[in-house]
């Protein structure tokens, strides 16, 4: 049973925010401009991004609202009756509520009656997990259509009040706490949605899902990106082990952190999975027309990419496509937002038969996911 992406949608809250405006939205911690903002923004090369908080750090859109808006746009563009949708899969790093699962909340907003739901939990790759669950459900002929939504509201973790409250944290102690600040200038908000069906759309191009693969390396590496612990060497407590949530916040256990030193490993493991799929005959780089990568290409401009070229399996730069620089890094939502714009953008002419390789790595604890699409018409 072949499964097709027959419609897409996205939602980006508020106006595009340029680099200079970012600190106005997230807020200057204790009234002091960051020493690291410009440096980190320069490295990630993101020009504009969106936030679901305003300049007073008040939430303008909940995560569920963003997910619902993207899903609604996807449904509005689809040639399918809502009652034919049998499943809703929702991915996010963190829903508005720790419980219940975010899919329940999105289902309620969308008023989709009596469907099967799944909420996937993780960071960036939770979107691929949701997509794979929905893909498999359709392949097993459990449903005729499934809606997959990924949404991310990172800015609530990144606003100045979070850092100001962490008075007994590494962030408060150090003049510059790179690991704690790194993601503050990387992540932003947004949502994307894909509709999966067991037949192509009657009009326009659909994307057949050819294969999906994932390789996680958590068994080998320490945690690299996380919320829930203080970030101190040797500390084993996680946020709920503190006597109060206030104490957890003071100690910095609710701050989002990236162990920047370990970050290289996600590129390495990304390349390892890519080569593994080449070796298994699943991934054929020479046949890929478009490469959609959650990482920006300049991250790969290093020795390992040169080695892939020497080994004859690199994908030429002109086949890479991304909207990271204008839509921001929206974590789990990024790939769906990218697919949505890719199918609509005038930058690129997607033709019937085009083959698209998508790569979503997650640095959390080193999960790498890949999927392959082919553009088809009915």
């Amino acid at each position, binding site marked *: 049973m072949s499964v097709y992406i027959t419609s897409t949608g996205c939602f980006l809250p508020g106006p595009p925010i340029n680099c200079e405006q970012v600190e106005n939205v997230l807020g200057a911690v204790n009234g002091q401009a960051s020493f690291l903002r410009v440096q980190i923004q320069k490295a990630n090369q993101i020009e504009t991004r969106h936030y679901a908080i305003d300049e007073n750090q008040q939430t303008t859109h909940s995560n569920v609202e963003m997910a619902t808006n993207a899903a609604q746009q996807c449904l509005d563009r689809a040639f399918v009756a809502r009652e034919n949708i049998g499943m809703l899969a929702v991915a996010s790093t963190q829903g508005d509520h720790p419980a219940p699962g975010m899919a329940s909340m999105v289902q309620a907003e969308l008023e989709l009656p009596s469907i099967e739901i799944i909420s996937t939990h993780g960071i960036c790759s939770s979107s691929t997990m949701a997509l794979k669950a929905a893909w498999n459900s359709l392949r097993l002929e459990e449903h005729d259509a499934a809606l997959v939504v990924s949404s991310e509201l990172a800015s609530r973790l990144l606003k100045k009040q979070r850092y100001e409250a962490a008075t007994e944290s590494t962030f408060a102690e150090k003049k510059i706490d*790179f690991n704690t600040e790194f993601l503050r200038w990387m992540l932003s908000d947004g949502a994307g949605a894909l509709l999966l069906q067991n037949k192509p759309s009657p009009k326009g191009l659909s994307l057949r899902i050819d294969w999906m693969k994932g390789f996680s390396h958590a*068994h080998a*590496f320490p945690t690299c990106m996380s919320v829930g612990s203080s970030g101190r060497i040797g500390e084993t407590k996680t946020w709920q082990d503190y006597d109060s949530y206030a104490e957890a916040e003071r100690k910095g256990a609710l701050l989002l952190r990236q162990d920047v030193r370990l970050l*290289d490993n*996600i590129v390495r493991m990304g390349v390892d999975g890519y080569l593994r799929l080449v070796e298994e005959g699943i991934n054929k780089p020479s046949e890929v027309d478009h490469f959609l990568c959650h990482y920006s290409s300049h991250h790969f401009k290093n020795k390992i990419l040169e080695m*892939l070229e*020497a080994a004859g399996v690199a994908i030429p730069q002109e086949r890479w496509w991304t909207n990271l620089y204008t839509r921001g890094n929206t974590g789990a939502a990024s790939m769906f937002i990218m697919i949505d714009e890719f199918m609509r953008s005038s930058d690129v002419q997607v033709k019937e038969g085009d083959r698209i390789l998508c790569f979503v790595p997650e640095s959390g604890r080193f999960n790498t996911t890949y999927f392959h699409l082919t553009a088809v018409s009915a």
Partner: protein
Amino acid sequence: MSDSEIAISDGPSGGVENKENVSLNPHAQVCLQQLLRVWLGFERDLSTVPLIRRIDLGTYTVEDHLCFLRNLRQQVIEGSRWITRTASSFDSEHSEIRSTIIQHAMDEHKDYELIEKDYIATGGSIEDIQEMSRNIGSEALHGFLMYRSSRPNPIDLLGAMWIIEGLGEKMASSWAERIRELTGLGEDSTRFMAYHGHNDADHMQQFYDMLEEVCLTQESVDIIVKTAKVVARLYRLQLEEIEYEIR
């Protein structure tokens, strides 16, 4: 912290300084693909070795460093032996690769003296490091490398060089500075690690040239990759064995 520390940089072993020069035949390309995977798997699995994990987690101590250097010295001494043996096992039809390997051996055959100096700078005594015998992993690794390098035209040793050179680069790019930061030791304690990596970057183009020269059949691919896998496993064993000394 500098820009270079933000960007996701540096892949496995050395880099290609001038990639326009790299044009490999199809077998050499497949070999390089597979060697990359062996390297990436090796590098990942190193993260599970307790001593290396402490570098990642930030709990590595001066005592760990002394122990690391004590165990590295034998490997480096034996390294120059198998490389020279490899060179002498190539016949005149492989004179190019023989020249490259002789030069390589020349460059590195007294590296162990640098380790001894690092050891003393770290607070150890010359007697302690010189009396240290090969650990179980070093025995296995050395035994395997001497066996393979004694065979005629041992092209599979390219797989061994790939892993060992790659590790030199990794020591310099990922470990040397981190170890100094964690332990408060000075640069004179990590000279071997830092120097070794710097030197290895120059060897990368030579590696491609050698691969292009000798990797002309599927059989060549298979033996080079297999030797890389064995060396990766035995090298990790050598590092795992350090832990037994610490306990």
